[in-house]
């Protein structure tokens, strides 16, 4: 409950922030929403030398549709902004479904999507959503800027692809080309619980035929898992019952769950399968 000592800087511009990160490299940890970092610091699971608080950097709180149709989410866009967003609308159903399921309402007031991706908790929900949507992260440093696909951004449990001195300033979601169908299903025992299993599904159809499919899994591996085989069988299909079943089977196969107090390996696999089926073939839920 009492963090160890650290130094603290709250830069007032992006340049200032990048300069600090360039100067301090590995010693520095970026503080955005802080809803994962501060708990870890409080419990002394993390003891950074320097916290670079970017909350005073102007112009990072946005989420907007660019002229190209790409959805851009700034590093200080809070979960709550997405929960009550007018921008996501019907075009981004997977994101709209996931936003209210992140942590709890108070945490959503401060936590950020970009921060959640950087934190790379295997039980984090946003990484699955972004994997399903083929999202990207924009990283900038004093040296320049690069765009990293989320598939390459998360490199391991609690590890990301940022280099020392780099700051993730934005997440991007490509524009949907067809009719989007998307859900995020999360098995949690109560609000604020980590997902026992989470399944993000984002499919686009054109004249009833799937043109793009994204499926990603939460809580069933060392990281969020993009179920590429399960995605592949959907493309070109009309979302018929047999294809959905096959996709669900492949998604369950892609999962690498571990038995723990949240459930057995077999159970989690089974829920992945069930959730993929439900997400693709929505029907009235049996139990609310």
């Amino acid at each position: 409950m009492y963090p160890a000592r650290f130094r603290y800087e709250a830069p007032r511009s992006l340049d200032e922030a990048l300069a600090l990160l360039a100067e301090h490299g590995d010693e520095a940890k970026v503080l955005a929403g802080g809803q994962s970092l501060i708990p870890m610091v409080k419990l002394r699971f993390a003891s950074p030398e320097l916290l670079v608080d970017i909350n005073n950097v102007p112009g990072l709180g946005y989420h907007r549709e660019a002229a190209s149709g790409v959805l851009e989410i700034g590093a200080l866009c809070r979960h709550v902004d997405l929960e009550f967003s007018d921008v996501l609308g019907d075009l981004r159903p997977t994101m709209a479904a996931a936003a209210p399921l992140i942590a709890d309402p108070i945490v959503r007031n401060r936590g950020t999507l970009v921060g959640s991706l950087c934190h790379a908790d295997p039980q984090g929900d946003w990484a699955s959503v972004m994997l399903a949507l083929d999202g990207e992260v924009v990283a900038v440093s004093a040296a320049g800027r690069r765009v990293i696909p989320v598939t390459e951004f998360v490199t391991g449990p609690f590890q990301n692809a940022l280099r020392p001195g780099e700051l993730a300033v934005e997440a991007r979601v490509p524009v949907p080309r067809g009719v989007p169908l998307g859900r995020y299903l999360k098995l949690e025992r109560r609000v604020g619980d980590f997902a026992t299993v989470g399944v993000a599904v984002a499919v686009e159809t054109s004249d009833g035929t799937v043109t793009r499919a994204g499926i990603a899994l939460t809580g069933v591996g060392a990281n969020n898992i993009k179920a590429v085989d399960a995605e592949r069988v959907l493309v070109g299909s009309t979302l018929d019952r047999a294809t959905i079943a096959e996709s669900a089977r492949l998604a369950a196969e892609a999962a690498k769950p571990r038995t723990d107090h949240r459930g057995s390996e077999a159970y989690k696999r089974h829920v992945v399968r069930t959730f993929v089926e439900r997400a693709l073939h929505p029907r009235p839920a049996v139990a609310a």
Partner: protein
Amino acid sequence: MTRVDEIGIGGLGASRRRVEDARFIRGCGNYTDDIKLPGMLHMEVLRSPVAHARIKSIDTSAAWAIPGVRLVLTGEMAAQRNLAWMPTLSYDTQAVLATDKVRFQGQEVACVVADDPYTAKDGCEAIVVEYEQLPAIVNPTQALAPDAPLIRDDKEGQTDNVCYRWEVGDKAGTDRAFARADKVTRLKLHYPRSHPSPIECCGSIANYDPATGKLTVYMTSQAPHIIRAAVALVAELPEHLIRIVSPDIGGGFGNKVPVYPGYVCSILCSILLGKPVKWTEDKSGNLISTGFARDMYFDGELALREDGRILALRFHADTDQGAFFSDAQPSKFKIGLVHSAFACYDIPVGHITARGAYTNKAPGGVAYRCSFRVTEAMFFQERIIAAAAADLGMDPAEFRRVNLVRDDQFPYRTPFGFLTDSGQYRRCLDLGLDAIGYEDFLKDKEEARLRGRRLGIGISTMTEPLGAGNSREYDILGIKMFDSAELRVHPTGKAILRTGAKSQGQGHETTWAQIVSHELGIPAADVVVEEGDTDTAPFGMGTYASRSTPVAGAAVSMVSRKIRAKARKLAAHLLEVSEEDVEWELGRFFVRSAPNRGVTIQECAMAAYGNMPDGLEPGLENNAYYDPPNLTWPFACYLVIVEVDPETGVWDVLRVVAVDDCGVRINPMIVEGQITGGLTEAYAMSNMQFMTFDAEGNCVGSNYLDYLLPTAWETPGFELHEVVTPCPHHPIGAKGVGECAAVGGPAAFVNAVLDALSDTGVRNIDMPLLPDRVWEAITTGRDVSGAPPVKT
């Protein structure tokens, strides 16, 4: 002549708004951690990261070197004061700070006192402890295995991990009854380890004044007087120089009854430093080291006759006691009042055996919203009742109706010697069935099943013993379990009441005043209530086990009646008639032959100070110590409807109906609040809330990310109904209510889920009924055990 309207003055039956709320809603409560004394230092505790290990060395030098650190206390230093160990409330010993071994994860190893808590924590981090790890034991089966490592090698003569054995009932008679049974139902289950987990953790501020020798301790205690006695014994301090103050308490639920090492350390540190020392526990410290609850393994049977009558019962219970036997319960009963199981059923004979085992888990065994192991007992009762009805092919409601004690059987002696004295059991059951629409539901359920939906209904009926208890049988460390009240009526008729109980949210400041109001006709608003300061409150055993209303509440009635008796003398004097000619009605004495001639209680109060008759002592104050003649026996019937999603094992609660007969209700609003709170605990227990351990003895559930408590979102709505059967021996007929729903509720939820699975052959799933357990039961058709260790 206008009469005093009891409800109008906030008397018995008034849903009076709570007095204590005025400060709480303004953020002006006064909880232990809110108190700041001049020169106060802060203490943090270093805990063992492992469950079982020999301590090879403790190096505190780096901690001492940190600026702002004032003291680093180890077990060795405590031992010099004879305080490395302390007695528990169950005649065992418990380590204050480990010297030889650590015996559970989270055990207190050292503590650091510093100028501020951040520095104290820095100090803890700087202590280096070298452990030599030993195999950990995380359940009674492991503990009682012949080759199990000895956990309590500190205890002379202890050669195994048996903590106690206990037996009650008539074995021979029970065996005979079983021999002639038409059918025998057997059920084994585990009631998982849980933690009461009030939102406020434990804490204390010890202030030893070297000049006067007086020790004042502000602390989170449900039973400050017991603590004073314990501190006097443990720290060998004179009791008159110890003052324990329990300020506002942020929830207790049994967690804040025992004496914890943190309290003792803060006292010792204050004595060593001559300064006030504050200890505020963090949540993981609270969850992994302080009083757990439950963790009992049942294996039992019912002997049944074809017509549905229960002929006999027998069961064995193994309890995982953790590393030290520190249950807070009446000393005579090693496993609490577990033998109150089945008290609501007319069963002629029974036999119970029980055994406690030491394990490498936290000690405690507290009465978590429960009258000493009664929750476990009633859970097993209602689970095997459901199983027996199923075995007989009988409707579970009808099976209960056949076996419940009839109204004309009271007073009823149970096979284990309890005397239940009143109730309308069938009426409660029928009211509940009616309210939930039982017959219609059974049809709906069949129809739903045809469409692939799994609905289920669960019933739980039970009576539980509250208000421990009479001095013949109930004591803690030799102190009888009475309670007390002291009432002072001031000259203008306003009053102050103090009791030996201690509210933790139950609303004593509101309801005690209502009892005074009922007895004396003084408006409740004119009575201030104080509790929790041992320098001012009369000696009492505190608030737990639903004993406040049955015992302290009765004392409030009795002291008010003593005041009334004296006021009668004053009234006779004022009315110039003899005492025999004076009649009482609420708030007023009058002359029997001339009812218009009267004096109010307030006029009597003034006379007590200014116009007393010759020979009568001045003043209008008194106290009462109440030794209850019996326990009180509230009855409850809970019904739950659930729907199970067979594909995921997730289940949702569709309805909860509660019928409570807690006797006379002092404040119906508060009573209902206690019931909805208890039902939520019941739901939580059945659905998500448990504490388990892995094979190494690591606690899974050491924080609120793993130890799950329900939020407003999941918690179902509750429909409440009442029946009132006054308690025949309580002065105002009340029986107590704080725990019934938490005690009787869990089985209703579990029975409902198992009812939804009735075609699968599954007889038991251990709580909590996690989705994966339910799914496993559905897919395999087999029972699912929840005994630790969990696989990881």
